[in-house]
């Protein structure tokens, strides 16, 4: 049996779990406020999923179009989120994003420039004006490297290649976390007054995903097990353009920047089908002829946006419909053509990673031929429910920011709003943690029994004589989620998925990994299974409850948005008996001023009348 006094132990004021954009920005803020801070990451520093973000970060900097301001950005975000966003979070985000982006420049970020030498901004789906600060098509790498290189001089500790296996509590409040070094399999105890989750989402519940192995829903599950609530879990974003061929790369992201730079979507008849899928709400602001779309691309400010730049949920469903109708590409997607829209040199300059990605992985030259693309699970709008200003969950001392938290994006996230989300709410969660720590009278104490139980749970996997192969069980989860809770859903299929996930639990509790504790891939996979199945169940239960289609949640048996459902969020919590409960919770009325902005006519906003 472990002796807790012999465990390697770190004591921090704040432990940040996750070292992507949100986690690093949170850690920088904590350190700036004088807190002893530690950052834990499952991978090496600088490898987090943030590096995959391509297109840019949205902020109303007004460098390219002076008509932009926070109100228009806020309005775009609410409309994109189908008005299910947390109003206050969407407001804070739109107001603070420009300062957060500018400060990155002082920390070393090198964004592309306008002719005036300012930060350049590009067009993206759902954004009224060119709004995305970007560095070619590798803006996520730029963000993470900037935060990493700045961060290493701020005095916080980084604990790399460490998986958190459980949060620890002192009564109701947070007291720390137990980790496991991936390198040698030893346990490590983190005592902390506050914990910030910057853990991202759970895309690995599905087979076709743009997410890396780290995205196993750890943050949501750790918080849920510790008593926090999850919210909006039914809203899973399928990015419309993932690679579909070759099979080994299916799901890998193709940036929306391709469409932002003029790329168009075609079916196998050569038809530009997005003109047939323009939702009523967006019709007044979307081009309805190729000619008008072309004028917009040339910079005509009176032309409306091409339909390829409708929100991601709309484009993903359109591609799926085309494939279902037999008009798909040879490998079951749609054609994305930039070759005939822009000169080769322009494409190579603006979309260098895409050029290389297709050249090297699919042997396609995107300056000559169209890409084949299809929907891929990309992002969780839902996550840990937090207070909009402090980012604290229901558990005192437990915070969340970035993709791990819920509320900011509502039912659907706009491209480019993720990177800005990370830096806005990363900072705010640091502020929130600092404020919380000030209220503490005595430091929380770690519960020894809790630690021992966690250690036993983890090591049992190695000590069993036999049990299911964790890699196989993971594939089973992916199959269940793909079949029952994919891009389109039905009540009976969701019920079946929930039942099957339930039946899988005993198998998960009995998986066996090879006994070597050192860098043992099978063991690490086994330890992720609980997060995967819990996250999957939360998605499926929430999706079953929401009887409508909205944003990233589509029900074939309940088509279209239902007014009734705009009044509710779905909240998931763990019951005292260990079972999962999903329930409807009525949304508070929005502040009058924000409602006015969100529902304003664009002309009135531009004229400064709202």
């Amino acid at each position: 049996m472990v002796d807790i006094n012999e465990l390697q132990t770190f004591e921090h004021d704040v432990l940040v779990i996750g070292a992507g954009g949100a986690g690093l920005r949170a850690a920088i803020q904590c350190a700036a406020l004088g807190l002893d801070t530690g950052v834990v990451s499952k991978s090496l520093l600088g490898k987090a999923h943030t590096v995959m973000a391509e297109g840019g970060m949205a902020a109303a900097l007004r460098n390219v179009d002076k008509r932009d301001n926070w109100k228009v950005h806020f309005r775009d975000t609410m409309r994109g989120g189908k008005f299910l966003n947390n109003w206050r979070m969407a407001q804070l985000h739109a107001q603070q994003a420009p300062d957060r982006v500018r400060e990155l420049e002082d920390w070393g970020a090198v964004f592309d420039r306008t002719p005036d030498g300012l930060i350049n901004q590009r067009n993206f789906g759902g954004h009224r004006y060119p709004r995305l600060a970007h560095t070619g098509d590798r803006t996520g790498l730029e963000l993470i490297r900037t935060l990493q290189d700045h961060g290493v001089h701020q005095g916080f500790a980084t604990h790399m290649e460490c998986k958190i296996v459980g949060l620890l509590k002192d009564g109701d409040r947070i007291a720390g976390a137990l980790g496991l070094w991936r390198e040698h399999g030893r346990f490590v105890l983190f005592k902390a007054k506050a914990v910030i989750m910057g853990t991202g989402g759970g895309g690995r519940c599905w087979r076709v995903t743009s997410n890396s192995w780290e995205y196993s829903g750890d943050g949501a599950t750790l918080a849920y097990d510790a008593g926090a609530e999850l919210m909006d879990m039914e809203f899973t974003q399928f990015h419309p353009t993932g690679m579909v061929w070759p099979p080994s790369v299916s799901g890998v992201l193709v940036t929306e920047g391709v469409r932002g730079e003029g790329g168009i979507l075609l079916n196998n008849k050569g038809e530009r089908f997005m003109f047939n899928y323009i939702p009523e709400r967006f019709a007044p602001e979307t081009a309805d002829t190729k000619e008008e779309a072309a004028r917009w691309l040339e910079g005509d400010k009176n032309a409306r946006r091409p339909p390829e730049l409708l929100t991601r949920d709309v484009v993903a469903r359109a591609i799926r419909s085309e494939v279902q109708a037999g008009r798909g590409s040879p490998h079951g997607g749609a054609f994305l053509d930039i070759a005939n829209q822009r000169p080769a040199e322009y494409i190579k300059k603006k979309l260098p990673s895409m050029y290389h990605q297709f050249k090297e992985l699919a042997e396609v030259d995107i300056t000559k031929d169209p890409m084949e693309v299809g929907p891929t699970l990309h992002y969780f709008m839902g996550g840990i429910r937090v207070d909009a200003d402090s980012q604290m969950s229901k558990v005192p001392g437990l915070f969340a920011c970035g993709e791990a938290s819920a509320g900011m994006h509502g039912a659907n996230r706009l491209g480019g709003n993720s990177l800005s989300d990370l830096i806005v709410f990363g900072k705010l969660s640091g502020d929130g943690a600092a404020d919380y720590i000030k209220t503490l009278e005595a430091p929380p104490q770690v519960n020894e029994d809790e630690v021992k139980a966690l250690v036993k749970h983890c090591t049992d996997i190695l000590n069993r004589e036999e049990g299911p192969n964790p890699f196989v069980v993971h594939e089973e989860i992916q199959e269940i989620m793909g079949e029952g809770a994919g891009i389109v859903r039905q009540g009976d299929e969701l019920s079946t998925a929930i039942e099957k996930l339930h039946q899988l639990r005993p198998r998960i509790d009995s998986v066996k990994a090879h006994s070597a504790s050192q860098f043992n891939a099978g063991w690490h996979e086994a330890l992720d299974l609980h997060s995967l199945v819990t996250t999957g169940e939360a998605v499926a239960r929430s999706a079953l409850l929401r009887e409508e289609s909205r944003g990233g949640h589509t029900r074939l048996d309940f088509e279209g948005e239902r007014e009734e459902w705009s009044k509710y969020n779905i909240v998931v919590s763990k019951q005292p008996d260990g079972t999962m409960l999903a329930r409807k919770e009525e949304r508070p009325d929005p502040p009058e001023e924000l409602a006015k902005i969100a529902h304003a006519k664009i002309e009135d906003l531009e004229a400064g009348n709202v």
Partner: protein
Amino acid sequence: MSKRTFRVWRGDKSGGEFKEYSVEVGPGMVVLDAIHRIQAEHASDLAVRWNCKAGKCGSCSMEIDGMPKLGCMTRLGDYPENHTITIQPMKTFPLIKDLVTDVSWNYEQNKRIKPLQPRPRDADGEHRMQQDDVERTQEFRKCIECYLCQNTCHVLRDHDRKDAFIGPRFMIRVGQLAMHPLDTEDRIPAIRDEYGSGYCNITRCCTEVCPEHINITDNGIIPLKERVVDRYYDPVKMLLRKISGK
């Protein structure tokens, strides 16, 4: 689908050996896919680092048939059909297990580089830089820190002079700062004295293995070496220094 055999290094710092595994391979598969299949079917404890599987994070660096490469960007189709592909860990860094090495030395080097010291903002609160002026520095910022260049560099790999030379990755990192339009720090003394720019003898091996196709040597290291030479080895300046005693 057809079968293919792979020779994979298995072992840790106490020793090890190559083991052969055969798995089904399909169209478009890359080396990392084959490794995952070996994990799932034959060796669940096979250690490998990976993340994005799209050449963007630089985690799955390894030596494939003796060439430093990313496992996720190396297509099996590039090798003859019946050829057994050999996969081993990067040689320059201490082995942890199988294909995973201890790359922490690189993280220590990064900390030695002084962060950007930006000039003050313009009166309206903006930083202004021209696109032409940031392009050189943007090229170096494409680096995904796979450390394949560090692994290949003779100074680090064959002569193990990690004490003397910071390596190509961090030469372009400091170069990126030295060529940054906003930076006000004089980095030349450190480039010579602390980072060991003189150790690089410009064989361009680092450039050859860079998966991001960064022109490390010609655009990064050589200009830095030139700046050092201009500062310290210009005969006129050397004479002046001798006379003035500075």
